[in-house]
């Protein structure tokens, strides 16, 4: 009985979604994909797929690390702007303005070429334990992307911290909670719930910024596709596959975040 009901339900849902013009559009799309699969050249795939997987892994790794570090940095930035004294809030505001006012590509090149050309002039840096890392490209990529995420998300967190109703914080103080406990139990969780919907968008934007690290010789999935293009003289195939990979990652991210959002309490404030 219930199986029958769900079957009818699914059929109803499908009939809403699958209108005649949609079926035609889907068939055209399928035909385009099949044309691409048959008439374009894909024989380079077996040779490069291992490299491609490494590239995807590196892209995801950079995305995860920079989002986590960037968010950790965004919390104090937002807090300083929302309720800090002027000698905290002014530098935080200046940091966010500078990061949001200049292109990420320029920030990346400033760190990699600019700082990278200054560091070797100081012998004590070259002798320190950090030097083996500073000679590689990925620390600069991680720092630049982290700052970028923190700059944009810091602004969001400022609004989220300021949006928590005063009554909540006053009630917590009336309970005799210490300042740290108020922050940890009341202020941060409520601000985080407020910021969560924008966090999805920011994470997708961050994913879309990761290919820039290929310009400073970090081998992510974008750099792999550039290498395929150089090796095989093919223009479209690697780029189309690359676009498909990014769309898949975006879809997965949006799905995961929507599941997380569905789990948090809807009623806030």
């Amino acid at each position, binding site marked *: 009985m219930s199986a029958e009901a769900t079957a009818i339900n699914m059929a109803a849902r499908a009939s809403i979604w699958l*209108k005649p*013009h*949609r079926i035609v*559009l889907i068939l055209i799309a399928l035909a385009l994909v099949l044309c691409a699969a048959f008439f374009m050249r894909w024989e380079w795939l077996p040779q490069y797929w291992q490299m491609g997987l490494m590239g995807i892994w590196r892209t995801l790794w950079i995305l995860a690390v920079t989002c986590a570090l960037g968010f950790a940095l965004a919390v104090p930035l937002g807090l300083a702007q929302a309720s800090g004294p002027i000698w905290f809030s002014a530098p935080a505001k200046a940091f966010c*303005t*500078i990061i*949001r*006012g*200049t*292109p*990420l*590509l*320029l*920030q990346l*090149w*400033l760190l990699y*070429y*600019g*700082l*990278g*050309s*200054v560091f070797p002039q100081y012998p004590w840096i070259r002798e320190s334990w950090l030097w083996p890392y500073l000679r590689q490209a990925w620390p600069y990529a991680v720092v630049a992307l982290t700052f970028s995420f923190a700059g944009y998300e810091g602004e969001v967190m400022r609004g989220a911290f300021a949006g928590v109703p005063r009554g909540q914080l006053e009630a917590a103080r009336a309970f005799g909670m210490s300042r740290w406990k108020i922050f940890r139990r009341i202020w941060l969780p409520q601000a985080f719930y407020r910021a969560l919907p924008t966090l999805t968008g920011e994470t*997708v934007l961050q*994913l*879309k*910024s*990761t*290919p*820039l690290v290929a*310009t400073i010789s970090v081998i992510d999935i*974008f750099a792999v596709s550039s290498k395929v293009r150089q090796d095989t003289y093919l*223009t*479209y195939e690697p*780029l*189309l596959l*690359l*676009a498909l990979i*990014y*769309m898949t990652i*975006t*879809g997965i991210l949006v799905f995961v975040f929507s599941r997380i959002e569905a789990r948090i309490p809807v009623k806030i404030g």
Partner: protein
Amino acid sequence: MELLSPVAPGWGGTLLVGLLHSIEIAVGATCLGLMIGTAGAFGKLYGGPVTRDLLAVYTTIVRAVPELVLILLLYYAGTDLINQVLTAMGYSRVDISGLAAGIFVLGFVQGAYSTEVIRGAILAIPQGQIEAARAYGMPPGLMLRRITLPAMLPFAIPGLANLWLIATKDTALLAVVGFFELTLATRQAAGVTKAYLLFYLAAGALYLALTLFSNLIIGRVEVWSRRGMPSVKEAR
């Protein structure tokens, strides 16, 4: 410091020419994006089912793929396509100027974002205003010009201003395909003089100045577009 002077031995002039190219591209891309966005928003709201689905595919794909990948794809595909059409029609191949290609590519990307912004702004117009215009028997073109566009402006300005700021920063991505704008000019100047930090900081200051100046203008425009509307501040 004399490296930054605008006359011959210094590279300041090169940077300023680059900045000018960046602004040209950003203005062109924003205008093209606004045209695509207005048409797209109307298509999404009032178009037939096929138009709506195709526009949904356009905005979803453009917003899910990194700008850098789209720029490469459209830059090569666009110039290649035009040349193939020209050769098929019996004309000789032409070199597409970097400026036109850059404006087309960034405008195509901006169009997807502004479609969503303008669609939201049109939906925010009180329904009665559009119904009143229809009741007066206004033809659609007149209604668009007199009612819909002016009424949606205060709702659309914040989103469109954001898109303008994104456009000025996205011009930097064209440096990767070799178009001469501020970031590429900086890279060349820094590469020749080896004063990397100085030139990147100078270019950053130029971009920041452009953003802050734009913010000033945007604030004015926002006040102007909200004229006659009740103040938001008093409502709190």
